[in-house]
Every structure is written in structure tokens, then in C-alpha cells.
């Protein structure tokens, strides 16, 4: 306690009577240490020390930040020259900082908190002041209008903090919330108070007779802030109202069209690194970010939230399933939309969209996939197993909103979970559960594998193994779906045969009973059976597309290998590892999977041999030609299937053959299949290029293969592109 008292009163000017200088003593003791020694608390792990700051190291010491005089002496209680344009410029930059923070993943201190007004408002809140004015310039534009804008931005930050605490995304990776110990968000006034202060500001601006663009711009910034304050409604009362989102888009568009005509420069010193140097700060210094020059980021934010809100309209598990499959797949959605999705979907009251209990939602998947009402698996294990399955299913839904890298990692974990589920269902022999669980597992395995191409995880030499494996997986998927389809067909024909039987039976009790049974089946089961049949038709088409595209890729690799431009292993001999180990490491995620069993390394090797043609063989050219026309044929089939799917999606699943369940995400789905088609065409062209290039060339040693993403194509199937090797440096 005495120590604390002395330290508390310590200042540079105080006399240091109470202190003992131990510098020389320390020097002496240290000089006696062996150079390799570190004296430390045994409980302290030096690893923690790797995260330390460092005094006098310009990269690690925020005290060394140099501020200009204007930044140092910036006075918040002074209305700067021409208040209208300066306040407009501050509000504008602050909003662009919000975009930088949320759309461009920048940190709070280098964006929103680099604004001295934000810092001031938050520190007033910490001190207990909860209503403005937070600064006193005597000018209403500063004190009230800017005040309400900053207040609104802080209110948004409070909402973002709430989203982050839900634990859906990763701090630092997806979103930064370093509030510099100014986490005063709980002291913020309620939403209605913040809204009222923004509306008051807007009304105040109405009294200004100024006709300038600045005034129009300032009104837009306030309206945008108002929309941002309303974002939390989508969580607080699960609002599906898009009015504020539409207004956000509208205002952002207006601003974008005016910005080029406006000269906006905030007063010097109003945005700076001041906060990093003067507030408690455990982070290395960082330059403040130059925010984007327009408001496009807000349009993305609003559009992405609108997309997520669509899930509220889902009427079936099929639709939620397809929604989750695609909403975050073509481009990574805005982080707020990505967090909102699972929170809106899986609600605090433990329901899905306020409509289903978790287990009912789970059963719905089984029902729609099998067209049978699932009864619980017979064994005592049943209830628990269903519970576990529904949790894993919800995790699958959550995974769909992860960032593009985490998405693949999530599946790495999921495939083990589904594998174990499948094994458990098999042990209690529950066919419809098994089928669906197996379907999910195979889909996840395929998605995990192909996503690696999108993320550029695989080297060209690995393309063979990966595509051959996915070909293998999708063959199993096709078999499974065919089996499911057979089951459905036989259920449908069982109902139809009842009708035939009825006609044969004489009138009587038996006939009436059967007629009743038939009617019941027609009224209650037939629709679902037909829908499921058509959904399975669609899934089969999809699986066959995957299978064909993988086969084409495999063939192309075979051709390239036949010409000796690539092999399925490193092109240089390895000192520390070998081909087989590397292969096995790549397939580590799958080596415990029961069904389908991971083929041995030898099987991969043997299959590649089958796809390769010996150049010495006399039939080389003919076989090559056959291969080439086979690829062409496959591509045509793929394109035909894609066209069928696209036209079905566009027609709203109304053609009586396919059901895609894409009603909520029509445009996105069409976009996805169009990309896929573009890729398939690009692969076909590539085949021709490969053949003609390599046939003409007699010495093929100068080529290598690169995996290239087709422009506007679908990155899961890269183009195995021939490149001339650059000459090695001598």
C-alpha cells in the first residue's frame, strides 16, 4: 500500500527521496549472468514476450509518434472557419472512416477513433456525461449537428461490438474492435434518443437558407448516419423492414454523384494519430488509413444485409439449404451481413427463424430429402443422436457465413463430424437418416476439396490427385442419389398401383379402405414425393456436372503428362520427404473417413497411368484425338445440364422436371451457374490450345503448367494453362 501511495504521488518534479536508484546494481548483476541466461518468473512463458511493445523502437513504440502542431493543439471547442463546409468535411470523412473500418477491415484507432470528435465524445461518456453538447464552440453546426453525427457513429460501433461478442467471426481477422479503452458504449443514450438528436439536426439544417452543395451533403451524411443507427433493428426485433437499407443505398448514391463537385477538407488536426500517442495503448503505432473516396461501401453493406434478410422468407429446408449454400459463395459478404446471418437464422429463443425448433428443423431436412416423415431411430441412442445431428447441422449453417479461408477450415472439421454421425446412424440402421447424412458428408468433402483451388492451396502437380479424388467422391454421390431416387420412384409407383388395385377390386369394405388410403397418400404424400424426386433430379445433375468437370481436368492432366510437361509430384528430387508422404499429408483430412474409403497412394498412381498415353506408342495420335473428342463431348453435356438448370431457376422451379430450391437466391444461382458454364467453356478451349501447342512443338521441355482462374469463371475448376518456362538465371 505504501508503495502505491508513493507511486501515486510520483511525478518528475517531485523529489525522489522515496526511491532508490538500482541501475548500477542491476548492471552489475546482469554482467555476472551468462549471456544465454534470462532471469524470469518461472510461470512466465517467454512466448508471451513475443507480443510485447518496445520502448524507442519506432515500429513498436507509440510514444515516438510525431504529431504536427495542428494535431497537438487541435481545439475541439473552437468552431473552425466556415463551419458549414468544415463540419460537412468532418462528417464526410468520419463516415468514410466507417467504411474503411468495416469494409476494408482496418482498425478502429486508425479510422473512426482517429477522429478527435469521436475520441472526445467517448471520453465524455466514460466520465459520465451522456448527453451533449460534448464540445462547446457556440456554433450549432459543430455542437449539435456534428455532435449528433458522431453520436450516431458511436451508436453503430456499439451495435458492431454486440455483433462481435456473439462470437461468430474472428476479431482482428474479420473485424477490429480496439476501442483504446474508450469502451463507453453502454453509457450511450438509447436508440430513440440518438435518432431524435439526428432528426433535430436535420430540422435545424432546414432553417439554413444556404443553397450550397455542402448543406445538401451534410443532410445526406445525417440521413446515412440515421440509417446506420437503425441497423440494430434487424437483430433487436428481427425486423425484415428494408426501408432504412434502401434509404442508405439511395443516400450513398446521391453522395457518390455529388462528391466530385465538392471540395471537402476537414480542419487540419481533426483526424490524426493523436489518440494512439495519448491514450492507453497496447498496440504498435499505425498510420491512420486513407479512407475510400466514395460511399460505395455503404451500398455493399446495405445490399448484403438485404440479401441476408431474404432468408426470412424461406418456406422449406430446401430453400434454407440452398440459401446457405450460395449467399456468401460468389463473393465474401460484408462482415456485418455475415454476422447477422446466423444470428437472424438461429435465434436466441432457440428457434430457426422463429418458426421451427432445432430438432424440427433438422427433421424437416430429412423429410424433404426422403419424402418420408422421419420417426426417431429405434434405439435408445436415437434422441441424443438427433440432438447431436441437429447441432452439427446448425454448425454447417453457421459455417456458411465465415470468411473465405475459415469457410474451408470449417469444412475440414465438419467432415469428421458428419462421418461420425453417419457411422452412428448406420449402427441403429436408419436408412433415411443415413442417406441424408451421407449426402451432406459427400457434399462437404467435395466442397472442402474444390475450395482449395479457389484459395490457391494446390500446386499444379497436385491437380491430378485432387480432381481424381473429387471425381471419385462425386461418383459416390451420383450412386447415392440414384439410390435415393429409386426409393422415391418405388414409393410413387406404390401409390399409383393402389389406384390400379382399387379399379380391380369389387365394391366393399376392402375397396373403400384402399380408396381411403390412396386418397390420403395422394393428398398428403404425393406432392412431397414429386418435389423430392425433382430435387434429387437437380442434385443428380449437379453431381454429374462436378463429376464431368473433374474428369475433364483429369484428362487434361493426363494429356499434359503424356507430353512430359507435368507429373503428379515435385519436379525436383526431395531431400527430406518423399512423394508418398506429401500425398498422404495432402489427404490427411480424409484418411479416417470410413465411406468412401480413401484410395491408397498406389491407386492414385495407377489411375494416372491409365490416363497417360505412351508417346512411343504407335496409336499415340489416334488416342490423343479420341481423348480430345471425349473432352469436347463431356463439355457439351456439362453445358447442356447447366442450361437446363439455369432455365429451371429462371422459371422458378416450374418446369415439372427439376426443383432447385433457389427461389430466394435466384439471381445469385443464375450467376453461379453462368460462371460455371464460362469455366467449362474455357476448359474446352484450353484443351485445344494444349493439343495444338504441344503437337507442334518437338522439344517440350520448355513448358510448365500453371493453374489459372478463368476471368469471371468459377474458381473451383482452374485452367491448367501451358506456360513457357523462363530461362533460369545462370
Amino acid at each position, binding site marked *: 500500500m505504501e*508503495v502505491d501511495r508513493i507511486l501515486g504521488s510520483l511525478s518528475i518534479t517531485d523529489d525522489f527521496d522515496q*526511491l*532508490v536508484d538500482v541501475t548500477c546494481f542491476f548492471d552489475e548483476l546482469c554482467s555476472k549472468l551468462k549471456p544465454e541466461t*534470462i532471469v524470469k518468473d518461472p510461470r512466465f512463458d517467454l512466448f508471451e514476450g513475443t507480443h510485447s511493445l518496445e520502448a524507442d523502437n519506432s515500429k513498436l513504440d507509440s510514444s515516438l509518434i510525431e504529431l504536427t502542431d495542428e494535431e497537438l493543439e487541435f481545439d475541439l471547442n473552437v468552431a473552425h472557419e466556415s463551419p458549414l463546409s468544415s463540419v460537412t468535411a468532418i462528417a464526410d470523412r468520419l463516415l468514410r472512416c466507417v467504411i474503411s473500418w468495416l469494409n476494408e477491415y482496418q482498425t478502429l484507432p486508425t479510422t473512426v477513433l482517429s477522429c478527435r470528435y469521436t475520441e472526445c465524445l467517448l471520453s465524455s461518456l466514460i466520465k459520465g456525461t451522456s448527453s451533449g453538447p460534448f464540445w462547446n464552440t457556440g456554433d450549432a453546426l459543430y455542437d449539435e449537428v456534428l455532435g449528433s453525427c458522431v453520436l450516431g457513429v458511436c451508436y453503430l460501433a456499439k451495435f458492431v461490438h454486440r455483433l462481435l461478442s456473439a462470437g461468430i467471426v474472428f476479431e482482428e481477422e474479420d473485424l477490429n474492435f480496439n476501442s483504446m479503452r474508450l469502451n463507453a458504449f453502454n453509457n450511450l443514450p438509447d436508440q430513440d434518443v440518438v435518432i431524435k438528436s439526428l432528426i433535430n439536426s436535420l430540422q435545424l439544417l432546414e432553417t439554413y437558407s444556404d443553397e450550397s452543395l455542402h448543406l445538401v451533403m451534410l443532410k445526406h451524411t445525417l440521413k446515412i448516419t440515421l440509417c446506420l443507427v437503425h441497423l440494430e433493428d434487424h437483430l433487436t426485433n428481427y425486423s425484415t423492414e428494408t426501408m432504412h437499407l434502401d434509404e442508405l443505398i439511395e443516400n450513398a448514391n446521391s453522395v457518390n454523384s455529388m462528391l466530385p463537385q465538392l471540395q471537402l477538407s476537414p480542419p487540419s488536426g481533426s483526424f490524426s494519430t493523436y489518440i494512439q500517442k495519448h491514450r*492507453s*495503448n497496447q498496440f504498435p503505432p499505425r498510420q491512420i488509413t486513407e479512407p475510400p473516396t466514395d460511399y460505395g461501401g455503404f451500398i455493399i453493406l446495405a445490399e448484403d444485409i438485404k440479401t441476408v434478410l431474404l432468408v426470412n422468407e424461406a418456406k422449406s429446408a430446401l430453400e434454407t439449404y440452398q440459401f446457405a449454400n450460395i449467399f456468401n459463395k460468389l463473393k465474401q459478404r460484408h462482415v456485418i451481413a455475415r454476422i447477422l446471418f446466423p444470428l437472424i437464422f438461429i435465434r436466441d429463443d432457440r428457434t430457426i427463424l422463429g418458426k421451427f425448433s432445432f430438432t424440427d428443423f433438422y427433421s424437416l431436412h430429412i423429410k424433404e430429402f426422403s419424402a418420408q416423415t422421419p420417426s426417431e431411430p429405434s434405439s435408445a441412442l436415437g434422441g441424443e443422436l438427433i440432438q447431436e445431428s441437429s447441432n452439427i447441422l446448425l454448425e454447417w449453417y453457421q459455417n456458411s457465413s465465415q470468411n473465405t479461408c475459415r469457410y474451408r477450415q470449417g469444412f475440414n472439421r465438419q467432415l469428421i463430424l458428419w462421418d461420425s454421425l453417419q457411422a452412428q446412424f448406420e449402427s441403429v440402421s436408419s436408412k433415411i437418416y443415413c442417406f441424408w447424412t451421407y449426402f451432406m458428408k459427400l457434399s462437404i468433402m467435395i466442397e472442402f476439396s474444390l475450395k482449395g483451388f479457389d484459395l490457391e492451396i494446390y500446386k499444379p502437380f497436385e491437380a491430378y490427385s485432387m480432381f481424381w479424388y473429387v471425381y471419385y467422391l462425386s461418383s459416390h454421390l451420383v450412386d447415392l442419389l440414384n439410390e435415393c431416387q429409386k426409393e422415391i420412384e418405388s414409393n410413387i409407383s406404390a401409390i399409383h398401383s393402389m389406384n390400379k388395385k382399387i379399379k380391380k377390386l369389387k365394391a366393399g369394405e376392402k375397396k373403400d379402405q384402399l380408396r381411403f388410403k390412396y386418397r390420403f397418400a395422394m393428398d398428403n404424400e404425393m406432392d412431397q414425393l414429386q418435389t423430392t424426386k425433382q430435387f434429387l433430379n437437380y442434385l443428380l445433375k449437379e453431381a454429374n456436372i462436378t463429376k464431368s468437370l473433374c474428369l475433364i481436368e483429369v484428362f487434361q492432366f493426363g494429356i499434359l503428362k503424356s507430353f512430359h510437361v507435368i507429373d503428379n509430384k515435385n519436379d525436383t528430387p526431395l531431400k527430406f520427404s518423399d512423394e508418398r508422404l506429401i500425398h498422404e499429408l495432402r489427404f490427411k483430412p480424409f484418411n479416417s473417413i470410413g465411406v468412401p474409403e480413401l484410395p491408397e497412394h498406389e491407386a492414385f498412381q495407377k489411375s494416372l497411368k491409365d490416363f497417360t498415353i505412351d508417346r512411343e506408342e504407335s496409336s499415340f495420335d489416334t488416342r490423343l484425338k479420341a481423348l480430345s473428342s471425349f473432352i469436347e463431348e463431356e463439355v457439351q453435356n456439362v453445358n447442356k445440364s447447366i442450361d437446363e438448370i439455369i432455365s429451371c431457376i429462371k422459371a422458378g422451379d416450374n418446369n415439372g422436371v427439376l426443383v432447385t430450391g433457389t427461389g430466394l437466391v435466384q439471381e445469385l444461382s443464375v450467376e453461379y451457374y453462368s460462371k460455371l458454364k464460362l469455366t467449362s467453356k474455357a476448359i474446352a478451349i484450353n484443351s485445344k490450345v494444349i493439343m495444338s501447342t504441344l503437337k507442334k512443338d518437338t522439344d517440350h521441355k520448355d513448358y510448365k503448367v500453371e493453374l489459372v482462374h478463368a476471368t469471371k469463371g468459377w474458381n473451383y475448376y482452374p485452367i491448367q494453362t501451358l506456360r513457357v518456362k523462363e530461362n533460369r538465371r545462370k
Partner: protein
Amino acid sequence: MDALKLSDFIGSTLIVSLAEDRILIGSLVAVDAQMNLLLDHVEERIGSGSRMMGLVSVPRRSVQSIKITKPMLRDLAANKFELMGNIV
């Protein structure tokens, strides 16, 4: 004081003066043979301003002086002798 070893200072609060009227106050977590200090819960004082900086490494060349409060030094020494007393 002469009986004290470096390890005895681990965990105690050091007042480290750097150049230009800058003082870091923090508890000693580790020190190496070159007397580079690793301090935790560091409070920085410049003039009348004060702020927290967490875990900070302080290179020897930046250190102008290391000080410790008299009461804390007394406690350290007292503990030491008590400990030695126990052993004896």
C-alpha cells in the same frame, strides 16, 4: 541490498527513466544478460500525463536509470533474510 539477486526483483515494480522526461513504471517480468528489461502492466508518464501500455520491452540503451521504492526494497530484503533465516 547486496544480498539480493536479480531473480528477487522479478515481480517488483520498477521505475525506469528514459530520455526526455519519460518514465515507465511496470513490474519486472524478465531481464537478460544485457539488462534488456521486460515489464508488464506498464504505465507511461510524460509530464503530467499518464497512460497504460501493457507489456513493454525496454532495451538497455534506452534506460537512463532504474529505481525502486524504498519500502519495496525493504520488503524484498526482509523477505530474503526471513527466507535465509528459515534455511539456517
